[in-house]
């Protein structure tokens, strides 16, 4: 199954990375196994988002920067408003990083 490393930058991914980092540093875990865990995380996170999440979101804002490089879109929005079924959030500056979904379905 193809996956992205993208989600490693999320809260859960960063917490895992830190955990693995500590365990490799103190010799509890080999770097090879740590990478295996990260690869499994990529898979599990992608599956969970596909199968367990139902929420829809709309985003509006001023596009400060856009970039498309290596099949990855990066947007930096100013004064962005995020809305979903339950809540609305406003942020002054937000970065959106998006990989091409078609790469996973091939």
């Amino acid at each position, binding site marked *: 199954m193809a996956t*992205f*490393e993208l*989600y490693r*930058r*999320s*809260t*859960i991914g*960063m*917490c*895992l*990375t*830190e*955990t*693995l*980092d500590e365990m490799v*540093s103190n010799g509890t*875990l*080999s*770097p090879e*196994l*740590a*990478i*295996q*865990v*990260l690869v499994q*995380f990529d898979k*599990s996170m*992608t*599956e*969970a*988002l*596909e199968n367990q999440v*139902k*929420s829809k*979101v*709309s*985003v*509006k*804002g001023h*596009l400060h*920067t856009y970039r498309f490089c290596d099949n990855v*879109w990066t*947007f*930096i*929005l100013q004064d*962005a408003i*995020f809305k*979903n079924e339950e809540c609305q*959030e406003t*942020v002054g*500056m*937000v*970065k*959106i990083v*998006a*990989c091409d*979904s078609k*790469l*996973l379905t*091939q």
Partner: protein
Amino acid sequence: MAATTTSTVYINVIEDVVNKVREEFLQSGVDEGVLSQLQALWEHKMMECGAICGPIERSSLPKHPGPGGSAITPVHDLNVPYEGPEEYETPTADMLFPPTPLQTPIQTPLPGTSEHSMYHLPTPSDYPTPQDSGGVPEVKPGRPSPYMASFDFFVVPSGKRKREDFPPQVPRTGYIPQQDGAGDATYDVFQSENLVYPKQSTILKLGKGVVNLRLGCEEIHALKQPLWLFFASEDYNTVNTPAGHELHATTPAVAAPTDQGGDDDDDEPPLNENDDDDLDDVEGEEPNTQHLVLAQFDKVTRTKSKWKCTLKDGIMRINSKDILFTKATGEFDF
């Protein structure tokens, strides 16, 4: 509630990862206690930054988030004994064991087969090897063979090589002598000029029709000055409007040093750091953005300054809250 749902999904992901790497751990001869330690540490960190709700009673309810799951997520759960010394933001493992290309999953989705056939470019390895033809390859000049393309790379530099020193405007295969005025040159003169002063010959070409080959070295140097400033203009104070000077530069008058004063009416100071956009500086330190959306895009379109995109399967960290979505639509104005 979004927070609860996110927490539930996160707990399920942790569970899933731990279960699926167990086999690998056992095969590598690693004690299962290490895996439990990993899970505990991971969950503690997650609770610490408020991404999952604690306590997790997994042992009794392995597939459900537990009673704490219905509680409102605290930003920092003070009931958790863990006191992490590190800031949540520090990405250290990436530096410690950067993903090797072999194990980088992003490499795998990139299609090796389908795209390869579409954008097939012949590389040397695609040509039949000498072994395929069963002997030493023989290049027949009159007939296009696969070897012809790669043959060029193996040509031993010879006298002919000189032609490649010509400026790119001159066709590689045929030399066009200039016969249109004062810059007339015979092939031999031009070629020798090329060999000795490749740079100057370029300049002579630029000023063609005006400069002739009888110019002495000093004159060439004087002429070179404004042109040089135009092309690699580092000194913005000397030449402010290169476009105007380009024309002047082709006349001999510009070779005189008196022209250096600059007759420009443009009083605006040259570009300097005061002209930098402050926002661009902020953008230069991109990781500064604390609010982050990680997702996959289905479609990104633009009409004039209106951008629209559809995203899916995303994780957002907005105002210290994690929100997951299956679909997102974005409308931005640039």
